[in-house]
């Protein structure tokens, strides 16, 4: 388990991280969210041991992160970079060696990643000649070739087309199946929602909320009810729900925000009794809704 406990990091007079804590059980995929400048990258660097926290601690399976442990981790930084003149295959193999891999495993794993990410035709070409998307895939391979116990990915999908993003998504899922713990940071919430089972949202270097999506949703005070057809009788029933507020829509449905603890079965029963209902949805808040609300509350 990765345990981040009340870490703090200052750079000169600037406090990049004030107080961040979370726990990540082994084998899960964790989403670290926050606006730009929230302290995500600094937190990730502290997890990797690149920075030493000024206060608090980071442990993996109860032990402080050290050099040998770091070799079992993988990292894809937000800022991309490769040796432009080094060939794709050489580059991936080099990072494998840096993480303590030996032959013949390096050759096998390198070939496997090249194939999985569709890089066969570029394998013997210098990385500098590749498109941005393909370079990004090479970097993912460099970060994950040693099948790390913990893989930290900072904005892994940025700049990728949907097909390549899907390819990476599959690669991450495969890693997860093989037991790798994934920590992802991304502004593409829908992808995180698919991949991650736990989340932590930080702003201004501090925790805002953390937990599973269900736990985050449980803190959300309202739900959205979407009903069709849009008739006076349906509208009248919805108007009488305590705490309900209509939301303007353009698709002809009746959308009402209702308290999270509203009795949906009773509402549905009343509606069916009054009208031939063609649609009834109780819409849960998305990760994006939760994220925006968490950030706005802080602001």
């Amino acid at each position, binding site marked *: 388990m990765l345990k981040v406990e009340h870490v703090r990091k200052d750079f*000169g007079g600037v406090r990049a991280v004030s107080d961040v804590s979370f726990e990540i059980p082994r084998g899960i995929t964790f989403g670290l969210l926050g606006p730009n400048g929230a302290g995500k990258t600094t937190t990730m*660097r502290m997890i*990797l041991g*690149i920075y030493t926290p000024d206060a608090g601690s980071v442990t993996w399976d109860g032990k402080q992160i050290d*050099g040998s442990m*770091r*070799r079992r*981790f*993988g*990292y*894809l*930084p937000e*800022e*991309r*970079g*490769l*040796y*432009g*003149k*080094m060939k794709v295959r050489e580059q991936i193999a*080099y*990072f494998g*060696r*840096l*993480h*303590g891999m030996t032959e013949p495993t390096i050759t096998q794993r390198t070939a496997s990643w090249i194939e999985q990410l569709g890089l066969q035709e570029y394998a013997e070409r210098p990385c500098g000649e590749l498109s941005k998307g393909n370079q990004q895939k090479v*970097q993912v391979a*460099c*970060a994950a070739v040693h099948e790390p116990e913990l893989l930290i990915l900072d904005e892994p999908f940025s700049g990728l087309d949907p097909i390549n993003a899907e390819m990476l998504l599959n690669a991450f899922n495969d890693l997860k199946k093989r037991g790798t713990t994934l920590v992802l940071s991304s502004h593409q919430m829908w992808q995180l929602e698919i991949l991650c089972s736990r989340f932590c949202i930080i702003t201004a270097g501090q925790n805002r909320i953390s937990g599973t999506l269900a736990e985050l949703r449980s803190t959300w005070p309202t739900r959205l009810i979407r009903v069709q057809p849009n008739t006076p009788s349906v509208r009248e029933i919805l108007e009488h729900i305590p705490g309900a507020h209509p939301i303007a829509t353009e698709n002809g449905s009746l959308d009402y925000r209702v308290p999270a603890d509203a009795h949906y079965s009773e509402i549905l029963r009343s509606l069916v009794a009054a009208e031939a209902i063609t649609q009834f949805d109780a819409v849960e808040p998305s990760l994006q809704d939760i994220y925006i609300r968490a950030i706005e509350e802080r602001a």
Partner: protein
Amino acid sequence: MNEFITVYSAEITRRLKSRAFRIGLIIGVLGIVAFIRLPQYMEKLAGDSGKSIVLVGDRALTKRAAPLIAKDFTVVGTSTDASPPTAAFLKSHNNAAASLMLAESASGIKVTIYAKDPGNIGAASANRIRSDLLPLNLQLATRMSQVRVNNLLQMQVDIRTVASKFGSVADAETAHNIASVLIFFLYFLIILNSQLILSSVAEEKTSRIAELLVASVQPTALLAGKIASAATLAILQMVIWIAVGALLGSGMSQTPGASGNFTGLSGLFSSSVISPLEIGAFFAFFILGYLQLATLFAAAGSLINRTEDLGSVSMPLVIPIIIAFFVAITALQTPDAGYVMVTSFIPLISPFIMFARIAVSNVPPIQIAASLAINLAAVITIAILAGKVYRVGLLLYGRPPKLRQIWATLRD
């Protein structure tokens, strides 16, 4: 240690494959070859084209002059025709390059050269003719016997040096020449390889691969692997250059008829005046000087965000090396001067200056040991301080840090 070995071997491979290293190595080898061979080739070229001559003049005079002139020229014929020669005349005498018209006067021999191409004859050839004919000229001018003239010309002159580590002036001059070349090598290798470290660190910083690297290995292992690989290749480069030089030098010293200038150049690589201690000192001071500067260059490289800034960060570091180079060159002439003595103990510059002193004078072993110890301490101190700057600088983007921030990092 594994991290270091991985970085070290990868850096060696990258550098061996890099165009800069290969071109540098080839240029160095070609430079050595040119340095040793070129004078001989030029001499040969000049000699071949202007070497065949016809002696013109009184039969008795040309007969006596011919064996003297034959030392430096090929006498392809003699003639008594006193009229100025034409091109057809030269052509009819085995296509000779020139005719030497000799005339006897009260003051000796008067020589007039008629050359097809005066550029091929030149002042050097005129001097050789003058020197070759000197015994005959003296004999004719003074009417002395041939034996007496020869005795006068063969007067023995011994040149000896006083209180020097060398047995003769020739050895001292050779040692001076060798030291000059080695100091230049030292300067060239340290500058070249430190600049390579600077650009390598800057490349990793600006391409943003640095973050990926430091997430995989300790920055100290990364830095050490980088510096050690460059040092290994610098030594390899140097060994290749010296081997080529020694090979050509030994070949040259056995070449019959090589001129004085030429053997002087080849002697730089074949002489025995340089001792194993001096060779050892050269390598020791190269390693110590290189480690200090390369580490500083690496720290400087970690602070830049754009490759355009390479010049501005390297300039303050290059200046002490240039100063050291010039002080070392003057130290070869005045190895015991006060400023030379003092600067041979100052880190960064002393590797050049102490080596110059060792090469041309008897430096007390305690002073050599003290200079080595000071430089070793400097290597360790610089490695600790520059290592801190490197660790921080590598992940620092945005505005370049101010001196105050760098100082705070060093104190941290």
